[in-house]
């Protein structure tokens, strides 16, 4: 906006002039005409409204169909209803402690302190993959293991793994649409098979992943199954070289298939088995890194990497004590898969950021709620 001619003489051409204290003659501007004033006020209003609208647009206020962390958590709550203080998914669980002994082999792939030779403390939580904190244990229910490694330099590595070799959904939208398609009919209390079939029809990658999952029948317990990190991560070593990696916990206890003879009448048979087992002897897993080759999909957790990829056993996880959620700090840990130490970075897998966002939303909701007693009580873990 250029000054009007009338004011040109007051223009400062030299900074020193001001030191001479020549306060410029105060000149009132010409009064605005009513029309001009109205136009200017309107422009101001439009500008401010534009700023507010832009801000709300960024916040998704004008896209009610957009999948947000809040809408995701709402859907979990609609399916499971709200259980005060519990996770929106993987609600039933028990907490464990132990340590990870790194053998140093991982430092070839990642500069993360956790892969240097030595021991770091670990706290974790075994869980079942549904939103009901009092569900009845079943072999077919997804088993989860969340871990937090506390590194000596104050960094943390958190991971949330499951006993499925691949994930059934390739992106958050597919996961959400499946939740909607699996909605139980209020009368029959069963999902509508037509909706399930329609979902699989439009998601062939899910059908393929389910076939792979079915070829890995669940083990008899929490302690003799592998847990899979599922998503790919980018590992960066000390010299800056990077590689894509998926990690797996391979159980030291031999796999034993769960059978119909499993005491399914015991509501907590999987958790009770875990508790009894850990009281007998520490539970151990090998942490195995699988290294991708060029062309292996890093953005699709429904697809396994081809057989024969390099596998590096980087150390042993030992879990030697078990605690009820009610007394363990692990209850209050969000096993956000993107809490990573320097040396491990996310891949381009769209599930990772979405998991981080939705876990965070679930954590924020339950953090402020009254904590109801856990199904696996402190007296149960002492048995």
């Amino acid at each position: 906006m250029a000054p009007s001619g009338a004011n040109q003489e007051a223009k400062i051409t030299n900074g020193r002039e001001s030191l001479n204290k020549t306060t410029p003659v105060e000149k009132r501007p010409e009064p605005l005409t009513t029309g001009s004033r109205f136009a200017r006020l309107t422009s101001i209003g439009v500008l401010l409204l534009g700023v507010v609208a832009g801000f709300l647009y960024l916040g998704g206020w004008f896209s009610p169909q957009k999948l947000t962390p809040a809408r995701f958590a709402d859907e979990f709550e609609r399916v499971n209803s709200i259980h005060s203080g519990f996770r929106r998914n993987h609600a039933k669980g028990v907490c464990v402690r132990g340590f990870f002994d790194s053998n140093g082999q991982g430092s070839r792939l990642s500069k993360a302190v956790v892969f240097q030779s030595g021991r770091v403390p670990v706290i974790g939580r075994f869980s079942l993959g549904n939103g009901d904190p009092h569900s009845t244990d079943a072999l077919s229910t997804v088993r989860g293991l969340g871990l937090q490694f506390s590194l000596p330099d104050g960094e943390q590595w958190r991971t949330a793994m499951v006993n499925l070799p691949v994930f059934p959904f390739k992106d958050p939208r597919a996961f959400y649409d499946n939740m909607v398609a699996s909605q139980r009919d209020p009368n029959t209390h069963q999902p509508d098979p037509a909706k399930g079939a329609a979902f699989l029809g439009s998601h062939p990658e899910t059908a393929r992943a389910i076939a792979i999952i079915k070829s890995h029948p669940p083990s008899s317990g929490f302690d003799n199954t592998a847990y899979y990190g599922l998503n790919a991560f980018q590992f960066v070593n000390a010299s800056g070289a990077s590689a894509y990696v998926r990690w797996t916990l391979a159980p030291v206890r031999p796999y034993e298939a769960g059978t119909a003879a499993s005491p399914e009448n015991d509501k907590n048979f999987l958790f009770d088995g875990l508790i009894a087992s850990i009281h007998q002897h520490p539970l151990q897993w090998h942490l195995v890194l699988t290294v991708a080759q060029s062309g292996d999909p890093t953005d699709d957790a429904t697809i396994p990497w081809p057989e024969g990829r390099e596998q590096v056993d980087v150390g042993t996880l030992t879990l030697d004590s078990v605690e009820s959620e009610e007394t363990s700090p692990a209850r209050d840990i969000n096993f956000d898969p993107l809490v990573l130490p320097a040396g491990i970075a996310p891949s381009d897998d769209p599930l990772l950021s979405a998991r981080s966002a939705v876990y965070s939303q679930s954590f924020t909701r339950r953090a402020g709620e009254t904590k109801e007693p856990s199904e696996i009580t402190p007296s149960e873990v002492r048995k």
Partner: protein
Amino acid sequence: MSAATTTDRQRFPGSMRFLHWLMAVLVLTMLGIGIAMVASLGDYHSLVSIHRPLGIAILILVVIRFVNRQFSTLPPFPPTMSSQERFVAHASEVLLYTLLFVLPLVGWGMLSAARYPIVLFGSLHLFPILPHSVMLYAVLRKTHTFLAYLLFLAFVAHFGAILFHTLIVRDGLLSRMLPRRARAG
């Protein structure tokens, strides 16, 4: 359409103007990132990764700015402003400074209470400033959102006031914050 041109004495010192515009850019970016990240799945992680170090940068800058202000000579309000207007202007400055200081602190505090690692970049992370309590986290998390909306509204009011002075009153209020050669009405 400039009515009053502005001498150096009627302008904020260069350091204050620099900090003002630097923080204007950072804070507006921060507000945009903040509201976008809580509604985002795919961009959540990258936005959060910017949000945390940027918040700490703003916290450091507002402290520098406050100290710098104590050692600076402020230009007088233009004579067009009544004593009530001056009071409101001053109160809004106090509110803005307070929010720019408290919002990052609440963010740092809430992550501390939840025992999230507060990663700035690489392996550099901040120490927790509050005890571990998820209830405290929940309260501070709500407070953070509330204060962020309040900061946004304070910005809109600040922007509206300067537009009003520039386009309607035309008393050169904005030129106090502009570089020497630039002139605004």
